[in-house]
């Protein structure tokens, strides 16, 4: 057991983790943050994407112990109370959600993109999100949603 200190969705926490435990397991099983999804546990699908110091990482390939001292944001950390984050709102209104299993990883990857590039073109969006697999939507409405979010994207959302 290793004690890890990290910030999760703005809250500093201290949690004991196994030495082979992934960040995905810690978030889902120890912290009850089940919004982060496991689709393959092999780093292939992108469903488990969380932000580590603002950058998207695959939590199934990240050892929990390596999160020591870092800032983690999961899907549960985006909305402010009942106010959805602009990326969440755009996904909702643009019909970018179907089964929703890829959605948390997709939204966080899109947020990381817009945080660094608030005006991406369609091809840039596709490139940035291409590591997140979706089997339902055909992607059209996901890319639309990111474009819509970009239009209303505030500084440092």
């Amino acid at each position, binding site marked *: 057991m290793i004690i890890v200190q990290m910030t999760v969705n703005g809250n500093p926490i201290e949690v004991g983790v196994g030495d082979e435990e992934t960040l995905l397991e810690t978030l*889902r099983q120890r912290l009850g*943050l*089940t*919004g*982060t*999804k*496991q*689709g*393959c*546990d*092999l780093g*292939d*699908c992108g*469903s488990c994407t969380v932000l580590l110091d603002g950058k998207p990482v695959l939590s199934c390939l990240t050892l929990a112990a390596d999160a020591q001292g870092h800032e983690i944001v*999961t*899907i*549960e950390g*985006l*909305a402010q109370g009942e106010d*959805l984050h602009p990326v*969440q709102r755009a*996904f*909702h*209104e*643009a*019909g970018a*959600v*179907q*089964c*929703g*299993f*890829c*959605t*948390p990883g997709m*939204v966080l990857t899109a947020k990381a993109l817009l945080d660094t590039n608030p005006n991406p073109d*369609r091809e840039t*969006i*596709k*490139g940035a*999100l*291409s*590591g*997140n*697999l*979706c*089997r*339902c*939507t*055909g*992607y*059209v*409405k*996901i*890319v639309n949603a990111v474009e819509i979010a970009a239009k209303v994207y505030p500084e440092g959302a």
Partner: protein
Amino acid sequence: MKTSSFSYVGKALPRIDGVAKLTGDAQYTDDIHLPGTLVGKLLRSPHAHALIRNIDVSKAEALPGVRGIVLGKEAPICFGILPRAEDENALAIDKVRYVGEPVVGVAAVDERTALEALKLVEVDYELLPALFDPYEAMTREDVKIHKESEVANIERRATLEFGSVEEGFAAADHIREDTFFKAAITHAPIETHVALANYRDGKMTLWSTTQVPHYVHKAISRVLELPMDRVRVIKPTLGGGFGGKGEPFSYEFVACMLSRKCGRPVKIVHTREEVFMSHRGRHPMHMKLRTGVKKDGTITAVEFQNLLDGGSYGSYGLVTLYYSGQLLTLPYILPAYRFDGVRVFTNKPACGALRGHGGVGPRFAFEVHLDRIATDLGIDPVEIRQKNALKPNTMTLNELRITSCGFEECLEKAGKAIGWNERRGKLPRGRGVGIAGGGYVSGANNAIYFNPMPHSSVNISVDRGGGVTVFCGASDIGQGSDTMLALVAGETLGIRPDTIKVISADTDTTPVDLGSYSSRVTFMAGNACRSAALEVRRKIVPIIAEKLGVPEETVQIKDGIASAQGHSEKTLTFAQAVVLAESKGTSIYGSGGYTPPKLGGSYRGAGVGPSPAYSFGAHAAEVEVDEETGVVRVLKLVAAHDLGLALNPLAAEGQVEGAAVNALGEVLLENHDITDGGQHACPSLLEYKIPTMLDVPDVEAILVESVDPEGPFGAKECGEGSLHPSIPAVVNAIYDAVGIWLHDAPITPEAVLSALKKGEQP
């Protein structure tokens, strides 16, 4: 009915569960945690075909932390989605038939212990010769995968004949014969299969990632020998199905068996590799088509032979076999038709139903075949399709009743959007456009097991706060059926759909809907919901009329406010109306069901194919073929789909876009291949290529509205038929680009290069 006369129908409605899915609140099966839950794991066969001589679990049982082990002999009753193919056991008993078949179930305090226990189980196998080639399996009497097969390993041969085929060919000016092969693909939903079982006080509760809670309910009851009222099946939020969660599976029974044995909740989560092993995907089809035509392109006769490689079990296969023959009579008029199909067992994971079930392989073959015929005759591919197009309010020769049919409009709109007249045959070499058509069922007319009950039922309750709750067994698998129910109830009642609660897919609290398969839910559950909502309306409207002092027929309700036409000053809220209605002594509810009309012929096989309505579609693709590498890139895809009426255009477009992209994966990337020896060639999402954002263009969905006379507000299916035409449209576009015909899908760069080298065609 015109869309403009609706309050909510026809307008974009975001999903009612969208916010929960976007904030991480939505509970999928693996997100549910009960105290004391044990981890269940399945030991799977490493052999493709073997007898089980003995299973020794003593060492595994002795491992600290192991709480229970179950074997096949503890649940010997067979199950299977089709009553005529109940050939599976919860765990293999005396024989395994494919690599990955579950043999032993273990429950332990944690995953590591459960996996360790699997290693300690000793299974003594006696290897049998394994069959992987369906042509070989058809004739090998000495190797029986199922001893019940009468001839070699043929599960079923199906023959159909309509009209005078010989006369049709005799009347033809031109006859063409082609062979095609369509490989297997698998569903690959992003959520893997999960079951959580909790046996308490003689009652089993199973939360499962299933598209068919009702069939799972029946099967668990039967196999575990528990009365149905002691079994509850709940489908939590589901992370995609596409048919891959459309029947009862081993892990569901084993979770229940282990929970009953251990007295604790047991959860089984499939790894991604196990999802590939479970499969039930598209059947590989070896197809031969022969068609006679007049000089002007009019079809005179069609003959179709299809060999389906079914894998190791029956699954939905008999339906797949008949669908493959029956649905070929859409969307063109065939005056004479003969089908000869065979489904064969092989030692591979069983094939079953996948989005577009049964029709996808034959549609690929026929649409490419038709383009070749058009080319032989010097006729434009759009023209030959128009010439033979099925018309509304007709009957196909195999007695499929066609009501609404917007096929010709689909052809026209897809052609226009791709710039057919300006571009076909006129683009520089390496670029080309292609088109193809299709048609599909809006649900099957006949239930999977014979019963006289409604195919879908809905209850609607109204509380005195004006809240409306819809209860329905329909399974929202991501396609949006909960939102559809809210929309239909909202439109009927005059209540904003986003305020309506939907409780679905829980066998204890919701009335039966048969499940999410055959593209049946909007049509059938939508109609049941409309009927239930009309009952509520019938109870509320007289109360409103009385209170407002106006005739009943003038009462209108919109956004929860009741008023009378011509008397805008008189209003009553829906909630006030409910309170008044309840004061008469009873609570307000409505109940409705949908049973399809009796349809179809009386010949053998006539039960598969009839549907209360058919969707139609035409897709057009533009491709670029790199003649150096053989890589095909789809630059544009237009999918025109006749869905009757778009209840919710946002959701409908999403269905069409998603289905078309599934098809692009199917035609260019995906092959659920099994190696010699029965191992999966590519059991991960890295090796098995589903399209990423960079692999596909932005699909342009065109919704064509033929307004079906029997669909809810005129709607019919839109999520499955919209897959079919994309595959042949791409293949036909490749011919336009570089002059080669490809008859095997998926189209690999190697196949393109080899065809280019040969100059032309197979």
